[in-house]
């Protein structure tokens, strides 16, 4: 595929596949975006993983384990998509660990109470779904396909969060207060997940042109707010924005100013949990090194002894199994 063919494929809304010709900047933009997305999934395991041992019932615990496992899976789908662009998994992790690639700012906030698990599912996963549904039609095939798979699974994440928060919101006064407190703390950071305002988003125009992005940050943020306000009413919880009200002229909810100074502070490493998240991630990676090496050594030994897998027609093996 030539440069001309690339332009035609984009214009015709066709997908670009791994071995097609693509501009280096397109490749670099995708690697950066998909890697950041993958990193967000695996760092995102931490705030909720924090509550697995303290979930209030076996049902909630089983749900939370399944959800955190999904986040790991989403990270792996995305690393896999990123590798189709020629990126190397070990390099990507190295760039995360050394701070050269980022992850979503939202995971630098602490999960202080059990209600946070519900609020994260409802608001954080809700915002993520709004972003990700748009990415299912991204011009890069492997990324779009990974997003389709992820979106199918995210729906459970948001619904379990809403259900959990709904139980608290209609529980004892103490539970209700805990739910409200969690929503107070997660609402604004969730709105920041859509990124800077359109006029302050440096990569947006080019990404829209390449159809990596389909909607602007502000459009998606508005869409999320419009969906979420009525859900908050069902919960009977207040969203912590006194300026939030329906604007019939616009056909959207108006909302107050987002504290972008806070956003920039958290992006640049000075959020409540940045250091803790990274230390935990690096410790897990370093602590697992001997396991990875032992598995490689074991595989090499099996091959040496001739006990390794020799391939052969898989359909025949299947018949035996």
């Amino acid at each position, binding site marked *: 595929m030539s440069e001309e063919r690339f332009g035609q494929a984009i214009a015709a809304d066709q997908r670009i596949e791994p071995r*097609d*010709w693509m501009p280096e900047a397109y490749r670099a933009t995708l690697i950066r975006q998909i890697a950041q997305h993958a990193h967000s999934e695996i760092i995102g395991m931490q705030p909720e993983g924090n509550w697995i041992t303290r979930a209030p019932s076996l049902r909630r615990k089983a749900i939370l384990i399944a959800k955190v496992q999904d986040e790991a*899976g989403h990270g*792996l789908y995305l690393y896999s998509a990123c590798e*189709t662009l020629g990126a190397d998994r070990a390099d990507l992790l190295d760039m995360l660990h050394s701070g050269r690639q980022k992850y979503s700012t939202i995971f630098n906030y602490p999960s202080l109470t059990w209600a946070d698990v519900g609020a994260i599912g409802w608001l954080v996963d809700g915002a993520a779904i709004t972003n990700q549904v748009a990415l299912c039609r991204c011009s890069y095939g*492997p990324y779009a396909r990974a997003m389709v798979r992820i979106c199918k699974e995210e729906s459970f994440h948001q619904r379990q969060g809403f259900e959990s928060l709904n139980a608290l919101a209609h529980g004892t006064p103490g539970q209700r207060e805990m739910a409200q407190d969690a929503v107070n703390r997660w609402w604004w950071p969730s709105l920041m997940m859509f990124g800077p305002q359109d006029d302050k988003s440096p990569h947006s125009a080019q990404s829209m042109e390449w159809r990596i992005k389909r909607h602007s940050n502000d459009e998606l943020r508005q869409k999320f707010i419009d969906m979420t306000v009525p859900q908050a009413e069902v919960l009977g919880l207040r969203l912590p924005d006194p300026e939030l009200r329906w604007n019939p002229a616009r056909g959207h909810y108006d909302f107050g100013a987002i504290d972008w100074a806070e956003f920039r502070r958290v992006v640049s490493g000075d959020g409540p949990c940045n250091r803790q998240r990274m230390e935990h991630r690096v410790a897990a990676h370093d602590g697992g090194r001997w396991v990875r090496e032992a598995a490689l050594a074991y595989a090499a030994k099996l091959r040496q002894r001739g006990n390794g897998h020799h391939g052969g027609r898989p359909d025949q093996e*299947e018949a035996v199994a």
Partner: protein
Amino acid sequence: MSREWPLWEIFVRGRRGLSHVHVGSLHAADAQMALRNARDLYTRRQEGVSIWVVPASAIMASSPEEKDPFFDPAADKIYRHPTFYTIPSEARHL
């Protein structure tokens, strides 16, 4: 030997009667581990009844640059399609 686990391409049969379809890739030390990891990664919701794992390095792919010359030979053989032939309308079941 590389210190990193090699890459495997994963193919899943969704249910009996369907072919295996490529779903993505993963890293694993050997084929057995690739199978188990593929089960945990790609079939958490019963998306499959059978999995193939193939070392990514074993896959040879046609090149997109050669797409036209490579697939051209089929383009001018329209007589391979049933619609190429004119059949009298009174001839039935053809």
